């Protein structure tokens, strides 16, 4: 397909000759991944922007109709690849809602821990990349080093750096080990100092403030009307956070605050992200110190996770259970019904709409991607600003292409 000018958008522009159009992306350093924008410019001022997406559309939802509930978690890893753990949790949260499974408390706490660590990692990249785009390279390196530490934690937790596939229906792929707990405690100890360093670098930096304050303002009503969620909505004064509003997993037991701002500009989004990292760290600390004992997988008649190797080889029950779960005509059976379940992912409300049809494969696995909704507001945010603000606004929205296009 040649890169054609999108039809119908420029009729007005053609009449006014002094306007010219600029093709931005799909391969451009500031788009981070594969976004394309067609900007109409009047000198340096952006008159209009038309996003063109789909450069990473890989048919996630179609695959969801062919892989079973446990297999599909590997694909959700690749959806928001900056925080795969949050996607894993979101997917199995929805599947368990469909199957009517209530996971054991230890599993709930562990899922909270991993999704909050994912939240920190995601915000580090989001804030770091935003800094990178407006010229703060050191800030990005600080952030990425901390991210490597989170990778380390995940690696000792489940064996993979960032395509984790950690959750299973009714449980987790494996329990946490003392080594991992130690690593998490280490991280909790070291991270606040780094966060302070990072804030010292950027939060009161004149250049950074000038480039982000008052840029890309989104008001509260617009945010709600345009279905915006997550840190972007909270930076505009929407106090919606699913962790508080619909406490799922163990969030009801934990003490944390929702960070909001009223300004709604890029700087506010940056601040909200920085503060949310603190709150997430608080959640991780509470959860790791109060980690309940007990199994991580649903047990007994409801069992959905495979019994461990020892049981399979040594006990007849284990062998039977293993067999029952893996036989093609046994295994899980989802009810013939539909559910929608969402979690608060780092980018906003990440939900899955699953239709079950009596088998262990979803009939339809729709993902409600926050990035998709957020990129739709981009033209609205950028109109009237300078062309150099394009990257600042893009950075503050934290668009992840694979989640955008799926």
């Amino acid at each position, binding site marked *: 397909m040649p890169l054609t000018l999108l039809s119908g958008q420029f009729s007005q522009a053609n009449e006014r000759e002094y306007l010219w159009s600029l093709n931005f992306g799909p391969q451009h350093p500031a788009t981070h991944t594969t976004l394309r924008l067609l900007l109409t410019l009047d000198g340096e001022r952006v008159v209009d922007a038309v996003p063109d997406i789909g450069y990473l559309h890989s048919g996630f939802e179609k695959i969801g109709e062919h892989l079973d509930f446990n297999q599909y978690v590997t694909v959700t890893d690749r959806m928001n690849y900056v925080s795969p753990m949050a996607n894993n949790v979101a997917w199995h949260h929805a599947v368990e809602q469909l199957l009517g499974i209530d996971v054991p408390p230890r599993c709930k706490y562990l899922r909270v821990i991993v999704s909050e660590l994912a939240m920190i990692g995601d915000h580090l990249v989001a804030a770091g990349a935003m800094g990178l785009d407006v010229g703060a390279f050191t800030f990005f390196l600080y952030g990425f080093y901390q991210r490597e530490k989170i990778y380390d934690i995940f690696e000792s937790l489940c064996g993979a750096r960032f395509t984790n596939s950690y959750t299973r229906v009714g449980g987790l792929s494996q329990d946490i080990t003392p080594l991992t707990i130690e690593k998490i405690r280490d991280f909790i100890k070291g991270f606040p100092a780094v966060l302070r360093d990072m804030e010292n670098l950027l939060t009161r930096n004149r250049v950074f403030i000038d480039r982000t304050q008052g840029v890309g303002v989104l008001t509260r009503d617009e945010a709600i009307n345009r279905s915006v969620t997550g840190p972007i909505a909270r930076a505009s004064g929407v106090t*919606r956070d699913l962790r508080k509003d619909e406490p799922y997993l163990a969030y009801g037991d934990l003490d944390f605050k929702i960070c*909001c701002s009223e300004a709604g500009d890029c700087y506010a989004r940056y601040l909200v992200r920085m503060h949310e990292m603190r709150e997430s760290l608080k959640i991780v600390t509470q959860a790791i110190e109060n980690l309940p004992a007990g199994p991580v997988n649903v047990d007994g008649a409801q069992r959905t996770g495979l019994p461990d190797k020892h049981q399979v080889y040594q006990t007849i029950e284990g062998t039977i259970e293993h067999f029952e779960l893996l036989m093609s005509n046994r295994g899980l059976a989802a009810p013939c019904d539909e559910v929608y379940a969402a979690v608060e992912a780092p980018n906003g409300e990440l939900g899955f709409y699953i239709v079950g049809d009596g088998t262990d494969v979803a009939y339809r696995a*729709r993902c409600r991607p926050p990035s998709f909704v957020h990129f739709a507001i981009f033209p609205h945010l950028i109109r009237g600003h300078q062309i150099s603000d394009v990257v600042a606004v893009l950075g503050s929205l934290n668009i992840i292409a694979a989640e955008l296009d799926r």
Partner: protein
Amino acid sequence: MENEPFVPGLAGKGGHLIALEEVLDALKLQAGVLDMDAFRGQWRVVVDSSQLHATLKRLKEAWQFDMLVDITCVDYLQYQHATDRFGMVYLLACTERNQRLAIRVLLNEPNLVLPTVTDLWAGADWMEREVWDMFGIRFEGHSDLRRILMPEAFAAHPLRKDYPRQGRGERHNFPVVTRDQS
């Protein structure tokens, strides 16, 4: 600093003035409401396609369902005991009272047309474009109904059940650039 985020906690929230049941009771009297049921605590209301826009408008304006969480579609072609081909789903949320409601519309060929809701929620714009792209359902009154994820020249609607997962060979249909040419 003036932009220091404030942390309001939950103050001002949680005033559950109107229970979801009240909304549902009122909806029952509404014209065009065909059915309503709940599964795992989630209420779904099936609406006739001709009354869809009016119902959504009423929900937004009279009952403060101010956020459109998602619009999606399900193709029931191979679904057991399915009577209709497509089911559209509108997921609504009320940010004030923290309630959710799903509105469903059933559609059959050849009448794959629905009124747009972009006039109610600006966020519906891309969601409707995606449904058009993936399922081929038209939205009347949408200002810019183009394909959004697939290339403009693509012929099929890939999330329909009669479209194979591996496609019909479109992905192999490109010229080859060799070392010599570059």
